[in-house]
């Protein structure tokens, strides 16, 4: 697996495409600004959302049990999954049980799935595929990356890294559209017809969960395409997968979160569909799989627990100057971008030790976050944890210790500064070479004859 910086370097080889990717996402950031600034009390709304989520984090146990109790009363079956594997097995178990242990392989058509980053996190599609169950992603962007056999590069706009010409090619190959036709309306219509058949023939629908209301035992799914509704309403079984942090205490709190979510995500006042699911219709089964998968551990990390406030709007992606110029896949995690970089090390420190360093700590992420997660502060803190847990290269540790010695001894500092500047002046090739990453695309500063302190001694010190 490539590190973020290795993948980002490859991404940046195509200068024009990087420009296009950056501008596309910055445009979404600007749409967010426009929508957010129309709300006079925007900053108060963020503060309110943050407080509600803080309350949830401190009372998670009680709210989850309350939610379970109410959901069961509504006729929903609740399942608890400790990790990704359990989640996947539970989903398979639900399907298997519905068919009394014998899934009719010849006639069974599989599952439709609306957007769920949790199932990406759990690698559910791959798991079910091995069991012979095909999962069709019904969100248009997700269907595109699925046809291309790629993971989403963005949690809200999964195929934002694809150009319409390329989607035209992809659809020509998979859906039989005219070669060379890149008209978005034409392509969307083709996808619509293709997906319509899947909706009508798949007996199982899986959706994500945006908000689970403890007070009522209902859950809300937000989409722009109505694909969650289409899937759930036509299927015999509706399975909803949720990370346990999706809980909110009361229905009235939706008024806060629904105002923030779409404005932060895409600059829309609200998603086209905010669908409430409360109980199964006659003859239908409704299941909710509540997943931990490391969330309890994160909740127990004082410095990082509030990363669980995240409502997955991706505003931090769109504003991040690094994300815009490296693309979602460079983060090698289901959730990319700044929020992904503070969630991923909790799942696997070794595999994701590079991610907290894929940031300049500019702080723009924390400023756009609708629930006020201190993302850039957590990036800094993860760096400390990762180094202390031994996930830094030995060469870096050595360099840092050397630097620390020089910088904490004024005598050595003055001497090495003088020698360094002299060498740069007389023997510039020592630093101006390919071993120095600074020099690859930038000139080194021109070494002055004297340091500030030398000047000061001559000119001011009595």
């Amino acid at each position: 697996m490539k590190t973020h910086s290795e993948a980002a370097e490859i991404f940046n080889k195509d200068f024009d495409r990087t420009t296009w990717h950056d501008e596309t996402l910055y445009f979404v950031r600007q749409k967010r600004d426009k929508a957010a600034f129309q709300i006079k009390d925007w900053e108060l709304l963020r503060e309110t959302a943050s407080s509600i989520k803080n309350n949830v984090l401190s009372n998670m146990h009680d709210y989850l049990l309350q939610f379970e109790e109410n959901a069961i009363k509504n006729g929903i079956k609740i399942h608890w999954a400790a990790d990704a594997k359990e989640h996947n097995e539970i989903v398979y178990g639900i399907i298997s049980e519905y068919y009394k242990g014998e899934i009719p392989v010849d006639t069974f058509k599989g599952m439709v799935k609306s957007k769920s980053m949790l199932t990406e996190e759990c690698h559910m599609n791959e798991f079910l595929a091995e069991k012979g169950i095909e999962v069709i992603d019904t969100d248009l962007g997700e269907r595109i990356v699925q046809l291309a056999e790629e993971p989403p590069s963005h949690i809200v706009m999964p195929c934002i890294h694809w150009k319409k010409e390329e989607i035209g090619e992809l659809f020509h190959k998979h859906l039989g559209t005219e070669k060379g036709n890149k008209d978005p309306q034409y392509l969307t219509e083709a996808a619509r017809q293709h997906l319509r058949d899947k909706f009508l023939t798949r007996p199982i629908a899986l959706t994500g969960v945006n908000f689970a209301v403890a007070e009522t035992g209902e859950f809300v799914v937000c989409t722009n395409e109505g694909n969650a509704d289409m899937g759930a309403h036509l299927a015999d079984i509706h399975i909803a997968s949720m990370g346990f942090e999706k809980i909110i205490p009361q229905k009235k709190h939706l008024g806060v979160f629904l105002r923030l979510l779409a404005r932060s995500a895409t600059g829309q006042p609200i998603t086209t569909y905010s669908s409430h699911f409360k109980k199964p219709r006659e003859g239908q089964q409704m299941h909710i799989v509540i997943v931990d998968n490391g969330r309890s551990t994160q909740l127990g990390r004082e410095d990082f627990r509030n990363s669980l406030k995240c409502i997955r709007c991706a505003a931090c992606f769109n504003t991040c100057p690094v994300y815009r110029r490296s693309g979602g896949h460079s983060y090698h995690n289901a959730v990319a971008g700044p929020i992904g970089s503070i969630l991923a090390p909790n799942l696997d420190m070794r595999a994701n030790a590079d991610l907290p360093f894929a940031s300049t700590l500019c702080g723009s992420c924390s400023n756009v976050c609708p629930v006020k997660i201190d993302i850039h502060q957590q990036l800094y803190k993860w760096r400390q944890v990762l180094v202390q847990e031994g996930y830094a290269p030995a060469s870096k540790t050595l360099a840092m210790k050397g630097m620390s010695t020089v910088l904490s001894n004024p005598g050595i500092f003055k001497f090495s500064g003088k020698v360094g500047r002299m060498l740069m002046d007389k023997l510039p090739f020592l630093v101006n070479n390919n071993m120095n990453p600074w020099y690859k695309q930038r000139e080194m500063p021109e070494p002055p004859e004297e340091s500030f302190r030398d000047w000061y001694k001559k000119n001011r010190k009595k």
Partner: protein
Amino acid sequence: MKVALFIPCYIDQFYPKVGIATLQLLEKLGCEVVFPQNQTCCGQPMANSGYEHITGDCTKLFQDNFDDYDFVVSPSGSCTLHVKEHIPLKGKIYELIEFITDILKVESLEGEFKHKVGLHQSCHGQRGLKLSQMSELNAPFFSKPEQLLKNLKGLELVTLDRKDECCGFGGTFCVAEEAVSVRMGQDRLADHLKNGTEVLTGGDTSCLMHMEGIIRREKHSIKVMHIAEILNQAI
């Protein structure tokens, strides 16, 4: 007013002119300026790389140098922020611009600087020290650096397409993530070039050093000056 000057390590070694301009500017504004001789660095390069735990000696040295002063002033938003957040001092540290506007209470400066000036907001100065309002927030506009620049005769402040996007320096990020770092710097410069910047300025020499490195490599005609150099030259 007596102030102790903190000149960050790389400014001391590579940009003494920024230190000199800072000292002269503060003197012109009526301060008695002292430079404690054994200062080196605040420790930020190590801390931001995940090595805060080995910065103890650096912190102690910093305290030994500056604990005798009520006011410590530094021409760097980034280093000032690091000291504020990580090094307890008996007195208090200020970034140069905020010291002039908030402590010396200078409303505006009289002087002349006949150039189109592009202001680069360093993230640590802006979002960390709140030297100016941030584009992400729905909150009233203010800008301490603009407050000091805007009344200089002949100075025209350039309006940028993206007024507060990061330049990509980011400490060790600039070498660890070289490709993205350079690309971010190139994009910032493209914005300045497009909008007519003649002199690129800012409160953080680290951002300026990074962008100057690209300017010199790509042979752009933009001149780079720290805001202390502009103010010191203008008044």
